[in-house]
């Protein structure tokens, strides 16, 4: 398919360009908060992109995807704590462990469908969460500070915030490219076919289980990589990385941006996290207007607006933001 200049493509191009220019903007306004915020956004966009692979293209609604975020993070944190700071060891190991955990969870939960699958992935993620909570040596509930980011010899310095941001962004673009290749390959056809009609897939001769499992593992590994980046970004790991609400946030990002659309999860991650920053501000301004004085606590309540917003998205904008953009062209 050749790209056409549509509202949707123009929007995506502008978004990608803006993401590449974030560090420039941060230097310009002399404020590092924006860079830090967008590093976080980009990392979570990688996680959401991996969830989109199984959920949007494969129809596997996993409510435990944050488990891999935690797995990747803990692999880095634990190794660093034990004195292994080389990224050449940390990163591959994190990917292998994330993949292995996805394999075990997948083998057990892909036997089931629908609601069972949603609940079982949630329950297994919760199990991994509690395991992290019980790791007394590694900070238990309180988590663990990482004193040295992953070392790659002289190759790349992750402690440089701008360098680290661009590394995350390149990995995000790489993940999107990878997902694009995968979903259009023979393998991707099987995955999408099995989302659409698994029974028919088996009737025409596909042992769909093994393809779905492979897809589940790939997504787990990409998300594990996001976890590696997140741990390096915050210099900290804790069970909160994989709290079940984080899994919910990832689902929200995917659906808000647009399920089964390549850039949807990125759009969703940007939208959700920018909203998280902007809504409190809006609320406090509104509070001042309504009551005539500053309402100190008002801005804490942004989820009071986010919650019903989700309900509205579900009711009226099923295709997410990307779906709205796509309909601009048709409408």
């Amino acid at each position, binding site marked *: 398919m050749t790209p056409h200049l549509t509202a949707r493509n123009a929007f995506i191009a502008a978004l990608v360009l803006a993401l590449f220019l974030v560090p420039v903007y941060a230097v310009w306004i002399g404020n590092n908060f924006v860079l830090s915020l967008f590093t976080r956004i980009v990392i979570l966009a990688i996680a959401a992109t991996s969830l989109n692979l199984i959920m949007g293209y494969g129809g596997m609604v996993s409510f435990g995807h944050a488990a891999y975020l935690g797995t990747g993070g803990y692999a880095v944190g634990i190794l660093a704590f034990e004195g292994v700071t080389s990224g050449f060891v940390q990163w591959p190991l994190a990917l292998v462990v994330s993949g292995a955990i996805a394999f075990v969870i997948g083998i057990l939960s892909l036997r089931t469908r629908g*609601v069972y699958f949603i609940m079982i992935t949630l329950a297994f993620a919760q199990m991994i969460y509690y395991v992290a909570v019980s790791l007394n040596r590694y900070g238990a509930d309180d988590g663990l500070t990482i004193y040295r980011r992953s070392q790659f010899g002289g190759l790349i310095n992750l402690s440089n915030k701008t360098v680290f941001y661009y590394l995350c962004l390149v990995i995000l673009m790489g993940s999107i490219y990878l997902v694009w290749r995968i979903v259009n390959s023979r393998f991707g056809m099987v995955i999408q076919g099995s989302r659409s009609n698994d029974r028919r897939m088996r009737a025409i001769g596909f042992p769909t289980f093994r393809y779905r499992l492979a897809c589940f593992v790939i997504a787990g590994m990409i998300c594990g990589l996001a976890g590696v980046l997140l741990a390096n970004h915050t210099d900290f790991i804790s069970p909160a990385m994989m709290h079940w609400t984080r899994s919910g946030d990832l689902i*929200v990002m995917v659906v808000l941006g647009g399920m089964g659309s390549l850039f949807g999860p990125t759009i969703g991650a940007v939208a959700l996290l920018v909203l998280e920053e902007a809504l409190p501000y809006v609320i406090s301004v509104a509070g001042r207007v309504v009551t005539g004085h500053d309402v100190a606590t008002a801005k804490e309540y942004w989820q009071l607006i986010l*919650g019903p917003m989700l309900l509205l998205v579900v009711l009226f904008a099923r295709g997410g933001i990307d779906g709205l953009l796509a309909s601009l062209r048709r409408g």
Partner: protein
Amino acid sequence: MLLFIEQCLNGLQLGLLLFLLAAGLTLIFGIMDFVNLAHGSLYMIGAYFAATFAAMTDSFVLGALLALIATFLVGVVVEMVALRRLYGRDHLDHVLATFGLILFSNEMVRLVWGPEGRNLALPSWLNTAIEIFPGVYYPTYRFAIIVVALAVAGFLYVIVMRTRIGMLIRAGASNREMIGALGINIKLLYTLVFGIGAALAGLAGLMQTPILTASIGMGENILILAFVVIIIGGIGSIRGAFIASIFVGLIDTVGRAFMPDLLKLFLSQAAASTAGPALSSMLIYLLMAVILVLRPEGLFPAAGNR
């Protein structure tokens, strides 16, 4: 031995509380084919209502009754305003919408009651211990929880096994045409079922409050346990929910209490105290995994609910 009996009773008590939650979840899923993540929020709201009403009326029992009614009404309103529009939609839609509802109700509770938890004091007649076996004392209140929850379970059993609505539930779920054919007002039935589920969750929440205090997010961990229960028991099955609840409650409580000691028999002191907590928090999930391998549909899959 004394400790063991006490832990078993605690396990039974946790199991029965889980059952109150799981029964509502499984009924709502069985009849409306609706996945309600916000069920835990109703548990939380029931707890806060009870704390407030008990303080207002100066009576534990009256406060609890008012809280039950209020939680029922909240369930009815939420169903009528928002959730009924989602019946028949994709399960992912349910998950998203009720996830939004959780965020909303957590903030709402923070706004109304503040970020601090709320205590619910027991009246003196419940704040005692009774002798269940010669020489074995058990807190009266915990014993009362067991009795009340068993009574509710018995009541649900009668409804499910002896009434027409119960027959529909057993017949296997979400069969709108069949319910319509029997001349039952479906909309009303659905609202009622949701309200009853809410009241059951509220009951569980308010009964837990004197022990654990009401706090924001209190419903979420127990909700996930309730999910494990209905996965093990089989979605849509009240009987499965009951048996699995007791199972999960016992294994979780007893496992946490004795797993570290048990491990010391096989492992070194240090290894046991490291692995013990991790392993005991994994126990029920391991149980779930084993059951999934053996019976992917749970122990008692509801008829026609595949």
